[in-house]
């Protein structure tokens, strides 16, 4: 483009002028009849090539000089880089703005989101100044990932409309969600589309974290699809470098009995997302006890106040590694209780805190079915009794209880010396285990191998882990100090019971009799069966089987010290406690969800009101939202779903019970994993990820500051352009002088006079 296009008409003429003059001169040469041709020809012969070369150079220099002068006067206009994006009449600027958690990264009084906002403002101001029609659509990564349509679509960018500008900028804000660029790129065609006559420019405004760009192929395909539609693609980096970050990645109860007034062991995990080890990392812990009753009038269960717990200090966390430490907390009352963990502030504040809700029942019910009512076996399994607060409430019953009462409320069912079960009892027990329950069989005199084989083992399809053959005696040489029982020490039941090199409990266990399995029996690989304890490395003594969602343990000797002396060993009570902990804690529902995941609350039974009031945390105040529960087609259960879970924190769901009381449930929602690693792609890595795609990569700084640069630059008015023209002219003169087109010096051959 030129300032004065009309002058270009003269360009061919001016370029041809030296050639024309040269041709005319060839025809208009003066003729001289010359006597001293010999000297002339001698000179010409020696100079011929060099003269021709200089004349060609001179001709080219004259052509170049004239062309440069014409161009300079015509005023070539260079469209500034960004102005090329604004050319073309109707331009639709689609801003794909990254609002994932990592965009909250801050440094030096700014943040990635601040940079993104600056980019958007700059684009708006530039578009408002540029001729033509400019429309803007803003798509947030999180909205695109959730399938939400953008709020701002084809908004005209015009000067003198500050409210419009502010409404656009207000959309640029970070969330606590994890969202990558793929869905945003795909949404351009899916949700926005292209209209006739639109020139589409797509800006990907992001921090380009390495984790988000790990799978480059689908991103390349999405970008290629855009470019194939004549879309200009611009990538704008909002971070200047990769920074380290510490994040609390987990706070959760450890395996154990979750019951009120029982010391609760919890774990906290911190991950070091930096390239250097982190030392003396302190995690501040708080707990918050809620009332056990869920009949609070207020419904929002006004917190009774957080209580500080002893902080946990990680001495050293290696780069890229996680570290866990345990802490203990005790909640005296049953109900939903909160644990809150916090780190000191760093580059990314969102992942420096984590919430955990611990649902504690008053007690954990456990059923002991005694095949021989009143036997000591069952009594032994109730130890330790109420003298020690275990949180376990044991109920003793006969075998018919299996059929008559629902088993779902029990965390585990122990069957002691049970000979047989009728079909209903067997079916109830089988269904119970299948649904996630835990069953433990203790063998005894009453055990019937045929029943076990037919109903419980059922050729490996039943809940019992192995077939039984007959009672057997363990014949050993007691002078041989080899322990009778060998256990899998890694198993949670035995891990702490028999841990330690000086632990002599295991070697003190003597087994006299047991129920033997077939000699050729071995646990199959796909049956979920494993042997936890053997007799002298051979016959199985304790076998575990995963069945459905539950587990079944078979102890092939008596609980009572009849066939063995284990019950007389202090380790028996501990082992049984560990077994109960293991069996009851296997299916503790997770209380942590991620930001962005819908929060679904199932209404337990008819009679509960369909409206559920959700209370969700917000920056300044809690927000209440009422959701009506819908019956789910999959299982017929009513569920109320809160879709807006944008903030991390404790969410409450207030249910109206049939008796009009309010039942409050608590849920912890935390920032998602994957956004804490702030390692960003370098420019070269980004170029590699783009491959051969014709996309421009910019830094956010290039979009900063007021729009001062002109849309176009007149090259002809630039000093360096004039300098080039002058240099060409001087060069032409030099060549002309060199080619002897200037006045020659006097080199007269003097006439020698006679002496």
């Amino acid at each position, binding site marked *: 483009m030129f300032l004065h296009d009309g002058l270009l008409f003269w360009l061919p003429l001016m370029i041809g002028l030296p050639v024309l003059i040269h041709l005319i001169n060839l025809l208009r040469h*003066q003729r*001289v009849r010359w*006597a001293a041709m010999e000297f002339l020809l001698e000179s010409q012969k020696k100079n011929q090539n060099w003269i021709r070369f200089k004349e060609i150079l001179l001709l080219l220099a004259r052509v170049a000089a004239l062309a440069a002068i014409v161009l300079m006067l015509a005023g070539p206009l260079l469209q500034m880089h960004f102005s090329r994006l604004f050319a073309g009449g109707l331009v639709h600027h689609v801003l794909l703005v990254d609002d994932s958690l990592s965009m909250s990264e801050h440094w030096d009084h700014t943040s990635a989101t601040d940079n993104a906002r600056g980019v958007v403002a700059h684009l708006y101001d530039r578009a408002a100044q540029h001729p033509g029609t400019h429309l803007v659509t803003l798509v947030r990564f999180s909205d695109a990932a959730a399938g939400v349509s953008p709020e701002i679509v084809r908004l005209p960018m015009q000067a003198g409309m500050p409210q419009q500008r502010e409404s656009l900028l207000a959309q640029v804000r970070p969330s606590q969600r994890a969202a990558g660029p793929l869905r945003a790129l795909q949404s351009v065609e899916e949700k926005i589309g292209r209209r006739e006559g639109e020139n589409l420019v797509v800006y990907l405004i992001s921090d380009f974290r390495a984790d988000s760009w790990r799978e480059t192929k689908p991103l390349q395909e999405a970008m290629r699809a855009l470019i194939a539609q004549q879309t200009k693609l611009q990538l704008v980096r909002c971070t200047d470098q990769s920074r380290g970050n510490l994040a609390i990645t987990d706070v959760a109860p450890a395996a154990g009995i979750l019951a009120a007034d029982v010391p609760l062991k919890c774990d906290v995990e911190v991950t070091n997302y930096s390239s250097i080890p982190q030392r003396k990392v302190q995690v501040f812990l708080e707990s918050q006890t809620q009332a056990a009753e869920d009949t609070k009038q207020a419904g929002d269960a006004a917190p009774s106040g957080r209580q500080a717990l002893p902080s946990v200090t990680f001495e050293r966390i290696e780069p890229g590694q996680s570290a866990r430490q345990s802490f203990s907390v005790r909640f005296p009352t049953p109900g939903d209780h909160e644990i809150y963990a916090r780190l000191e502030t760093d580059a990314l504040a969102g992942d420096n805190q984590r919430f955990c809700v611990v649902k504690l029942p008053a007690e954990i019910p456990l059923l002991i079915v005694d095949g021989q009512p009143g036997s000591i076996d069952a009594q032994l399994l109730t130890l330790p009794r109420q003298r020690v607060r275990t949180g376990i409430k044991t109920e003793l019953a006969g075998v018919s209880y299996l059929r008559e009462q629902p088993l779902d409320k029990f965390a585990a069912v122990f069957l002691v010396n049970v000979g047989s079960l009728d079909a209903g009892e067997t079916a109830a027990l089988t269904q119970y285990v299948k649904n996630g329950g835990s069953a433990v069989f203790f063998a005894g005199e009453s055990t019937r191998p045929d029943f076990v084989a037919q109903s419980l083992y059922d050729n490996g399809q039943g809940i019992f882990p192995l077939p039984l053959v007959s009672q057997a005696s363990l014949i050993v040489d007691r002078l041989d100090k080899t322990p009778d029982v060998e256990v899998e020490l890694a198993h949670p039941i035995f891990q702490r019971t028999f841990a330690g090199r000086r632990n002599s409990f295991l070697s003190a266990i003597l087994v006299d009799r047991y129920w033997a399995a077939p000699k050729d029996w071995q646990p199959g690989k796909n049956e979920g069966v494993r042997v936890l304890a053997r007799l002298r490395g051979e016959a199985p003594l304790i076998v575990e089987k995963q069945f459905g969602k539950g587990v079944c343990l078979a102890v092939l000797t008596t609980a009572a010290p009849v066939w063995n002396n284990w019950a007389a060993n202090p380790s028996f009570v501990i082992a049984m406690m560990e077994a109960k902990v293991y069996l009851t804690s296997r299916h503790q529902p997770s209380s942590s969800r991620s930001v962005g995941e819908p929060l679904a609350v199932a209404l337990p039974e008819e009679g509960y009101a369909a409206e559920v009031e959700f209370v969700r945390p917000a920056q300044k105040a809690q927000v209440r939202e009422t959701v009506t529960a819908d019956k789910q087609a999959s299982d017929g259960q009513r569920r109320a779903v809160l879709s807006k879970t944008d903030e991390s924190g404790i969410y409450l769901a207030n249910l109206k019970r049939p008796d009009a009381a309010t039942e409050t449930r608590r849920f912890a929602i935390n920032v998602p994993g994957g956004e804490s690693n702030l390692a960003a792609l370098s420019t070269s890595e980004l170029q590699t990820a783009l491959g051969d795609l014709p996309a421009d990569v910019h830094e956010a700084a290039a979009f900063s500051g007021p729009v001062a640069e002109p849309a176009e630059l007149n090259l002809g008015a630039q000093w360096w352009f004039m300098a080039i023209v002058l240099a060409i002219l001087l060069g032409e003169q030099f060549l002309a002088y060199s080619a002897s087109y200037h006045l020659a010096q*006097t080199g*007269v*051959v003097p006439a020698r006079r*006679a002496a």
Partner: protein
Amino acid sequence: MSDSKRFLHPEAVQRIARLELRARYIVEGFLSGMHRSPYFGQSIEFRQHRQYAPGDDLRHVDWKVWAKQDRYYVKQFEEDTNLPCTLLVDVSESMQYGRGPLSKYDYAATVAVSLAYLILRQQDAVGCVSFDSAVRNTVPLRRRHTHIHAIAQSLAVSEPQSKTDLLSILRGVGETHPRRGMIVLVSDLLTDPEALLKGLRMLRQQGHDVMVFHILDDDELDFPFSGPTRFEGLETADNLNCNPRALRARYLAALQRFLETVRRGCAENTVDYALIRTRDPLDAALASYLSNRLGMHHRN
């Protein structure tokens, strides 16, 4: 430059069309005090005294006589060499060139006739041979005053054409002029210098005194041309389209080499050599001739 020289400039001389008149004009002007030759009166032997008359040159007063007799007598001189002089005038086509008042041919012819006039005035015999590739005209040696007309006539009718072949000319002259004399070559010498020097050497070996007037045009010496030019050879079929300024330096260098060769060759063969531009005043040749005569007088 004195006013007297002004009348000997080609611009002034070229107004006189007839060679004899031109020659007379030049010689009389040269001899009658317009040019104070230091050699005048000294290059000619004393013949007799005559009584002093007002207007005589005081340089010619014999002061010894005055000292002895207290009377004023003027010396009268007479040349005593009596060498016949043959003028060789190049009338080849190359002599046609000249953008000034006089072409080389005009200048050469004027010089030749002027010399003939001077020589005849001194009562010596003079002849003329005009040549190009061969002898065009031959005027025998005569002493009569009216011989000047024949010489002028022979040069006037000779129109420059054809090429120069100096060697054969000089050889021929040597053969046709066996008696020792003076040979004056008036030419632009645009020929093979080796052939020229060979011819001159031959004449010298024969005992002739040889003088060479090398007539060149200013253009040939300065090469002042500019702009696209087509040079067409006068004696050859060569032609050249060129930018003269681009060739000037090497042309002058080649010319300089040629002149040095000729000059050196003449010096080696004791041939008097004078390079004359066609814009130079015409007394240069006369002065050179007279200087040569003085030298001969002293040698003899």
